[in-house]
C-alpha cells in the first residue's frame, strides 16, 4: 500500500519533471546515468531515477517562481570541479537552484553533489532524501573521493557561520574555511565561484586554478581563499546604502 503510493507519487513527479524539462532535455537527462548497484544507487546513495522525480517542484520554482536566468555555465569545466558558493537561510533552496541549473542548463547535464553539514545525517528520512538526490556529508575524504570520480562538488566554505547569520547580515559574507582550497590543490581541481543570493540571475564565474602545496600554512592559503571569496559579492562588507538591497549576482 505504502509502496504503491510511493511509486504513484514518484511516477507523477517524474511526469511533471518531463513536462517542465521539455522534450530534448528529457532525452538528455536520461543519459545522466552513473554506476549504480542493485538498489539503484551509486556508492554515495545517489539515484538518478529518484532525483528526476524529486527535482520536479524545484524545477517548477526554478522556471516559474525564481525565473532563474543563468550565465557563465559554459565556464564549468568537464570532469571534476569545485563549485564554491555561499548560501543564506537554513533551507538550502539557493543551493538547490545551482543543482537544477547544472541539470537543465549545462551541456551535457551534470549532477551536482553538495557537501552538507555533519549533523544532517542525524535527521531520519530527510537524510535519505538528501543522499538520493546526491548530497554527501562534508568530510574531506568524501569530497576527495567524489572529485577523483570526476564529479561536480558544491561546497559552502562559510560553513555553519553562513547558515546561522542574522537576517540583517544576510548579504554579508562570512569568513571562508580553508578546507576546500586544500582539497582543490590536492586533487588539482578547478574552482568555479557561484555567488548567491541571485534569485533571478545565477552566474557561474570563470574557473580559478590554483597551484601550490595542499599542506601549506594557513597564512599562505588564506590569500588564495580570499581570491575566491572576493569573487562573491558581500565579501567587502555591507553596502553603504543598506544591506537590504539585493546584491547583483554579477560584478561589473
Amino acid at each position: 500500500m505504502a509502496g504503491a503510493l510511493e511509486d504513484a507519487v514518484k511516477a507523477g513527479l517524474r511526469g511533471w519533471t518531463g513536462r517542465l524539462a521539455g522534450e530534448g532535455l528529457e532525452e538528455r537527462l536520461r543519459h545522466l546515468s552513473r554506476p549504480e548497484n542493485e538498489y539503484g544507487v551509486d556508492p554515495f546513495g545517489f539515484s538518478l531515477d529518484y532525483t528526476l522525480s524529486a527535482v520536479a517542484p524545484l524545477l517548477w520554482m526554478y522556471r516559474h517562481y525564481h525565473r532563474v536566468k543563468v550565465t557563465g555555465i559554459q565556464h564549468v569545466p568537464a570532469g571534476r570541479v569545485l563549485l564554491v558558493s555561499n548560501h543564506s537561510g537554513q533551507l538550502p533552496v539557493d543551493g538547490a537552484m545551482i543543482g537544477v541549473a547544472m541539470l537543465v542548463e549545462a551541456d551535457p547535464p551534470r549532477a551536482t553533489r553538495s557537501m552538507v553539514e555533519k549533523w544532517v545525517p542525524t535527521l531520519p528520512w530527510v537524510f535519505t532524501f538528501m543522499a538520493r538526490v546526491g548530497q554527501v556529508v562534508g568530510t574531506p575524504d568524501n569530497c576527495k573521493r567524489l572529485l577523483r570520480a570526476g564529479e561536480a562538488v558544491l561546497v559552502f566554505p562559510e560553513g555553519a557561520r553562513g547558515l546561522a547569520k542574522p537576517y540583517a547580515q544576510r548579504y554579508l559574507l562570512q569568513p571562508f574555511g580553508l578546507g576546500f582550497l586544500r582539497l582543490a590543490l590536492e586533487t588539482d581541481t578547478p574552482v568555479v565561484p557561484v555567488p548567491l543570493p541571485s534569485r533571478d540571475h545565477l552566474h557561474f564565474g570563470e574557473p580559478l586554478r590554483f597551484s601550490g602545496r595542499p599542506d601549506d600554512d594557513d597564512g599562505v592559503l588564506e590569500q588564495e581563499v580570499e581570491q575566491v571569496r572576493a569573487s562573491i559579492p558581500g565579501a567587502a562588507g555591507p553596502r553603504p546604502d543598506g544591506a537590504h538591497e539585493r546584491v547583483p549576482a554579477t560584478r561589473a
Partner: protein
Amino acid sequence: MKPGVVITGISGNLGRALTRLLHGRERIIGVDRRPFPGRPPDVEVHQLDLRKNKLEDLFRRGPIKAVIHMGILHEPRMSAAEHHACNVLGTTRVLEHCARRGVEKVVVLSSANVYGPSPDNSHFITEDAPLMAASRFAGVRDLIEVDMLANAFFWRHPSNQTVVLRPFHIVGPTI
C-alpha cells in the same frame, strides 16, 4: 601427526559453518565453553574457558599450523566484568600460545562494529580509521580491546601471519 587448525568458539553458528568447510581437509581442534552437539566424530572439541591452563595442553600436544579465534563472547546477560575478563584475557592467552609455538597463521574475528556509527563519519571507512564505537555504546569495548590486541600482535610478531577480520553483518541460510 598432521598439523592441526584450532578453532575457538567452534560451537557458535560461524564456528559450525567453518567446521563444515574445513572438515575432511584439516585436522580440526575445537575449543568452546559450550558443547557442540552433532559434531563430526573426527573433530575434537574441548569444552573449556580460554583462560585455563588446559588450553596450552592443546598446543603442546602436536603441531598447530593455524588458529582461528572466534571465541569472543557476546552475551549481554553476563556481568560486564566477567564478560570483559573472559574476552580480553582469553584473547591474550590465545595470542601468547600462538607466539610461543610459532603458529603460522592467526585469524581473529573482530567486527565492523568497532568503528562505530556516527553522522560525521566519511562514507567509506578505511581500516586505519579510529575505533570509535565505545563512545556511544560501552558494551562494545571488549571487542575493541580484542581487536587492538590482535593489531598489536600483528606488529609484534611479524613472523606469524596475522589476519584481523572486521566483517559486516553475516547473514545467510547456514548462520
